[in-house]
């Protein structure tokens, strides 16, 4: 039986409410299929508008086999290109990030304008037509300060996502924020394990002492069900919405993305050990009230986010191999906030630096155990792991439908 059929059969016959079979977490062929079926076809969070504040600013990223560069043009638009020279394929931009008037391949100085058009290539003969050799474009959309790219020839419609998340993001003005800190960790585990770990707080009490000072462990806050019935959450939404901040839990019918504004515990305003704001200057002047909790934005397969009153934290997941995943965390603050004056970097980053490392250890130990021949799929907690079940459901639905050649349908869980 070929790989497609085998994966399809396994997903269709999977036991609902149970974790996936071993090869989904460790097999390189399954990984390749994940990349082709999910990663090379969906919109992926890649970075923030404020990482390319001016014309000529760029950053690069590696998405599976695809090197990509995101650059702001002279017209202010943010574009993404395949970062491979049309001459002999050398990476055009070789730094993580930088500023350049033109994108110049270091190999033979083929020179591309910021809109990707080839403007100079030395001595290529009279039949050479530069217009045929611009950088190949990657679909790119910016919403509320978040830049998404899609590697597919034809990208899924971005409009539903924009319509859903823009009102939630807009008050926080993240497109004009400032990156206070950025860290990338490599977790030695499959990207789905990284997500599964993220999608529940069943593990928080035993593993995240710093985070649990301020973040509620309640599945209503983390998961996908019951939030509206939680009076604490309902009261929070009412108060925030009255202040003009869209807050209620909203999820796309496919289950791929969702937004909600969740309260922190007690009087906490930020992810600090004290619960007090880490940044003296509010993130946005458009958020008129305090104690707004955390705006949660999830978009499979690349990003989860926490947007608070004083700062925002974005997480970007990029798979490196069947058993390695890079997670980039970016701390954003008001563009005018000054390190050492308005905030102390250690205080700002402490909780999630610790939490990330704890999660990394969990994911790696989880991956170790799954490699055991004795591993078999186990049952999720219905009370606590609804979020994980929803993630696996989403993954399975998207994979099955695409392997069968159909569009992704509505998720049954939502």
């Amino acid at each position, binding site marked *: 039986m070929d790989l497609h059929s085998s994966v399809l059969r396994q997903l269709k016959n999977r036991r609902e409410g149970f974790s996936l079979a071993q090869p989904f977490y460790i097999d390189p062929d399954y990984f390749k299929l994940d990349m082709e079926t999910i990663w090379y076809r969906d919109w992926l969070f890649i970075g923030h508008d404020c990482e390319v504040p*001016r*014309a*000529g600013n760029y950053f690069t990223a590696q998405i599976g086999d695809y090197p990509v560069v995101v650059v702001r043009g002279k017209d202010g638009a943010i574009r993404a290109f395949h970062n491979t020279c049309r001459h002999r394929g050398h990476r055009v931009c070789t730094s993580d990030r930088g*500023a*350049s*008037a*033109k994108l*110049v391949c270091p190999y*033979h*100085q083929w*020179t591309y*304008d910021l809109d990707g058009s080839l*403007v*100079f290539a*030395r*001595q*290529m*003969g*009279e*039949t*050479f037509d530069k217009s045929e050799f611009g950088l190949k474009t990657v679909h790119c959309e910016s919403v509320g300060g978040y830049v998404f790219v899609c590697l597919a020839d034809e990208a899924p419609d971005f409009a539903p996502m924009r319509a859903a998340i823009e009102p939630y993001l807009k008050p926080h003005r993240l497109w004009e924020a400032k990156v206070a800190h950025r860290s990338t960790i490599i977790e030695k585990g499959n990207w789905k394990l990284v997500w599964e770990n993220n999608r529940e707080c069943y593990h928080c009490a035993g593993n995240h002492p710093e985070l649990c000072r301020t973040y509620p462990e309640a599945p209503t806050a983390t998961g996908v069900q019951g939030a509206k019935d939680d009076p604490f959450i309902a009261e929070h939404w009412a108060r925030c919405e009255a202040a003009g901040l869209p807050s209620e839990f909203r999820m796309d019918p496919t289950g791929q993305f969702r937004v909600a504004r969740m309260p922190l515990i007690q009087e906490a305003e930020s992810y600090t050990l004290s619960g007090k704001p880490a940044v003296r200057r509010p993130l946005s002047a458009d958020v008129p009230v305090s104690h707004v909790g955390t705006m949660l934005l999830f978009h499979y397969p690349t990003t989860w986010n926490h947007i608070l009153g004083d700062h925002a934290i974005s997480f970007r997941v990029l798979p490196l191999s069947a058993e390695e995943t890079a997670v980039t965390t970016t701390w954003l603050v008001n563009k005018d906030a000054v390190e050492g004056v308005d905030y102390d970097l250690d205080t700002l980053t402490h909780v999630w630096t610790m939490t990330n490392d704890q999660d990394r250890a969990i994911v790696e130990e989880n991956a170790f155990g799954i490699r055991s021949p004795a591993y078999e799929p186990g049952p999720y907690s219905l009370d606590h792991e609804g979020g994980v079940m929803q993630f696996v459901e989403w993954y399975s639905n998207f994979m099955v439908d695409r392997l069968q050649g159909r569009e992704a349908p509505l998720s049954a869980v939502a």
Partner: protein
Amino acid sequence: MNISVPNYRHVDEMRPWSDREHRLACVAVTPESPDVMTFTFRPDRSGLWFRYLPGQFVTLELPVGPEPVLRTYTLSSSPSRPYTVAVTVKAQAGSIGTRWMFDHLKPGMVLTAIGPLGDFSYVRHPGRKYLFISAGSGITPMMSMTRDLGDRSPDSDIAFVHCARTPDDIIFRAELEAKAREMENLSLGFVVRQAARGQLWSGLKGRIDKAKIALLAPDFLDRTVFCCGPEPFMATVRESLASAGFEMKNYHEETFQPVKPEPPVVVADPSGEAAPTKVTFAMSGKEGACEPGHTLLQAARAAGVRIGAACESGLCGTCKVMKLSGEVEMNHNGGILDDEIDEGYVLACCSRPKGDVEIEA
């Protein structure tokens, strides 16, 4: 090079040569007089023709050593024959670039060239009648213009006056005499300093002066004058014309400095006071002179300082260097960000010093 049997193509089916994309392939080396050679070039690809004005110059990059030198030569060829270009050069004592051409440049070799450039052309300064007056290898732009006019409008009225050391040193003499048979209104006037004993010379002898000009071109006051030769020669012509009441706006000259090892690129210099500036290369610990109108990149090459460069037109940004002091005039093509300029960076290929400059190179 594999262009020996080009397909026949009409000019309108071909593309103009461009110094950004194409180089020059030497196709002929022709002796003209004892110290003078003509080097003829065609594009290093087929299907190209040369677009330039008669009288313009090119700058050749000559690989004399580890660092190439740049040398500027007026074209002696005519744009009416657009498949090749030619420079006719005289080997002077102490020359480096031209000496290299004499000793090493052979058919089949390919050179990088910049240009063509220049305003010294009847096209830019048209007149009813012309006086072309030259000395030594200052004849080359005159030859280019005469050949062009001979092809385009053979009835053009040209008084062609040329000064040489001896009759043997008259470059293009046979061709000019043939042209004078075809062109009814082309008159030739040769002036030599001396003739060898027994050598037949029925023309004028001595140095140029007002009387000789009046003799060889009696209606010179009505003519548009193009003058090219050593500075003392041109000074004499200028003074002769001015003292005869010539309308000097109809006088055009091209600097020609035969003994100077590095002839500068001719550039517009309204003040006429341009002098080389000093360029200090901080990392190399070297100093060099930058000729008026030359770029930092040219100055660096002349001083043996290597600066990476590719497009040499202010586009690709490869030659970006930090300027530590001094002022330059930079005309880039978008190869540098405003932020980088604010930080003190310049593109060496398109920055011309306005005084002494220090760069980090």
